[in-house]
């Protein structure tokens, strides 16, 4: 929440400095929001999967199984955290912690509505992308430290995949930056709200590339080669148990939320929409995108690794470059 805009709070906590205070409150809100949101998303995922697969999904705990993920979280908390004897203890312990932290940071510049935003950082989306890149390091650490060949293959795949897909991801956002002349996510959403025309209508190709690249960045099917359970058992987190495993899970779903929120901000007009308040529109769009991601996951088989690489380097990056080039020329001429 942009607390600096509410004068009385600024008066009360002025001695702390409004930025520090709003940051702290914001982080607390994130810390509460993220796990709850993930618990909800896991339930949605299981329900969506269930209904696509001609079965009801979780039904036992609570009405229609709505408390299932809470029970699962309790179960995971109670489980023993096994550390295999031949692991690199420090890296093995550090990896699940490092994977979660950048996922939380990603929430700071997200504009949920004109008022609800923790801080409209002037490097906005660069902040999110640079922090999400740290997640890759932790996956590599976890895969390497596990001392398991399946984990190692998963980790190596993860690095190659993330490096390859970050390029089209950034190239797909550059046309938006050219059009709005700002890195601030709040202003990008504002620009669309003012004109009323969402950027997906100006940049449909960039939107598709962005969607594909974020799906690959968040290791979701059909690009979930990092986990690829049919070949790599469980990929980089094969050796992780209990709460450590659930931290990887938490990070995956949090990254999904951030990716969907970014797509909403860049291409779907952010909070812009009639009648209902902005935050409602923002979350509605984000959750619709998350549903699409789940829908894709339960429909498509997994793509093979060489095909994945070819897709990024031979198809997505050239198209994204051409798209950027055309956008630049059109903007210059107009």
């Amino acid at each position, binding site marked *: 929440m942009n607390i600096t805009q509410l004068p009385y709070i600024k008066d009360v906590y002025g001695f702390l400095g409004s930025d520090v205070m709003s940051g702290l409150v914001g982080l607390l809100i994130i810390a509460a929001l993220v796990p709850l949101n993930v618990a909800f998303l896991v339930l949605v995922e299981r329900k969506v999967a269930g209904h696509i*697969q001609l079965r009801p999904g979780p039904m036992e705990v609570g009405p229609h199984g709505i408390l299932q993920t809470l029970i699962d979280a309790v179960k995971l908390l109670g489980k023993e955290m096994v550390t295999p004897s031949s692991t690199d203890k420090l890296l093995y312990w550090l990896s699940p912690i490092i994977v979660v932290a950048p996922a939380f940071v990603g929430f700071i510049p997200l504009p949920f509505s004109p008022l609800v935003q923790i801080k409209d950082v002037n490097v906005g989306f660069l902040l999110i992308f640079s922090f999400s890149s740290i997640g890759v390091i932790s996956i590599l650490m976890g895969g390497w430290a596990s001392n398991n060949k399946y984990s190692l293959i998963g980790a190596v795949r993860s690095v190659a995949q993330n490096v390859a897909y970050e390029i089209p991801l950034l190239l797909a956002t550059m046309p938006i930056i050219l059009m709005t002349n700002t890195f601030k996510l709040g202003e990008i959403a504002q620009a669309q709200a003012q004109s009323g025309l969402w950027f997906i209508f100006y940049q449909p190709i960039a939107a598709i590339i962005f969607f594909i690249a974020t799906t690959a960045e968040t290791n979701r099917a059909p690009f979930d080669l990092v986990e690829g359970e049919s*070949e790599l058992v469980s990929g980089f987190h094969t050796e992780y148990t209990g709460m450590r495993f659930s931290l990887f899970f938490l990070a995956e779903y949090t990254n999904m939320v951030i990716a969907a929120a970014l797509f909403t901000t860049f291409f779907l007009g952010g909070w812009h929409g009639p009648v209902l308040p902005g935050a409602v529109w923002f979350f509605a769009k984000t959750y619709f995108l998350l549903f699409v991601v789940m829908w894709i996951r*339960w429909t498509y*088989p997994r793509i093979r690794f060489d095909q994945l690489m070819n897709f990024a380097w031979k198809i997505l990056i050239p198209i994204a470059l051409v798209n950027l080039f055309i956008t630049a020329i059109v903007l210059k001429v107009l």
Partner: protein
Amino acid sequence: MLNIKTIDDATISQRVYQLNLGPQHPSTHGVMHLLLTLDGEVVVKIEPIIGYSHRGHEKMAENRIYEQFLPNPARMDYLSGMIFNHGYCMAVEKLCGIEVPRRAEYIRVITSELNRIASHFIGTMDYAMGLGAITPFLWGWDDRENILDLLEMISGSRLTYSYGRFGGVRNDITKEFYDGTRKFIDRLRSRFWDYENLINQNVIFIKRSRDVGVITTEDALAFGVTGPTLRGSGVKYDVRKNEPYSAYPEFKFEIPTRKEGDCLARYQVRMAELEQSINIIEQALDHLPPGPVRAKVPRFVTPPEGDCYVTFESARGAAGFYIVSDGTRVPYRIKVRAPSFSNLFVLTKICPGHFLADIVAIFGSIDVTVPEIDR
């Protein structure tokens, strides 16, 4: 597929590592152990290690009377238990010279073909799951469930049936089963459209399957590959047509074949066989003859001295029972020809040069059951 011959042996010995795919692994269908030698993610060598679920069925046969061995064949290939049960009964009947009533033969064909559909659903949809698509698997599971319900209705068990008896089947089919099978066939026909849209036309599915794990006709014949795997490599061989048994000569059906020999071809052959099996069941239900379902057979059969070999088409290929009798109530020796065993070892020839992910796909497309290999 990469050309691994470009790397010389000295380099390979430095950079390869071994990976144990199984015996406990999500996609090795039970307890199959594949010892892979990998260069990065490319397979240099593959060695299937079998024997983890060896239970000594063939040895067991030497220590019990023919009737007591009846439950065992279904436990070899647990996915097409009805067909194996049928095959064993045929072998003993041939040895003793027992005539089977026509109605019983028809019922055996109906149940065997139902079982074949159930097995092919596992074969095709489990292959799709090996590629990472979980939904087709559960859709196939849903259709298979109907078959298991039907077979449970007449045989009492869902997987390891011993419904066949020497000289017929245990009991006649009920009206419930007859109507249920009709209803199931109608439902399945309407479901093919769904499968067509969900996976058969899926871009990623086709990209992952085409030109992967090509078995040439020569390789297939050299390794003794049979069943849908052989028919995917362009050989039109099906025991039901080439060496007809039971009531199969009385039905009209096609043998689907594909020339390509890749995973997609094998998958398509199995999907096409589903429709042929439906046709057979429909014809059998239409012309179900009246009469007894079991011939007059002594309580315990005592075959004369001699031996016989009976071959039949299981869901995985040409299976066979070779029985040697020494004139007592206990068989002297029973040898089983397991199609999965021959099909499996073609992996050693076709896998090198493929990616790790393809190994899972190829293994799934060959569709083996481990207990049948180990027996």
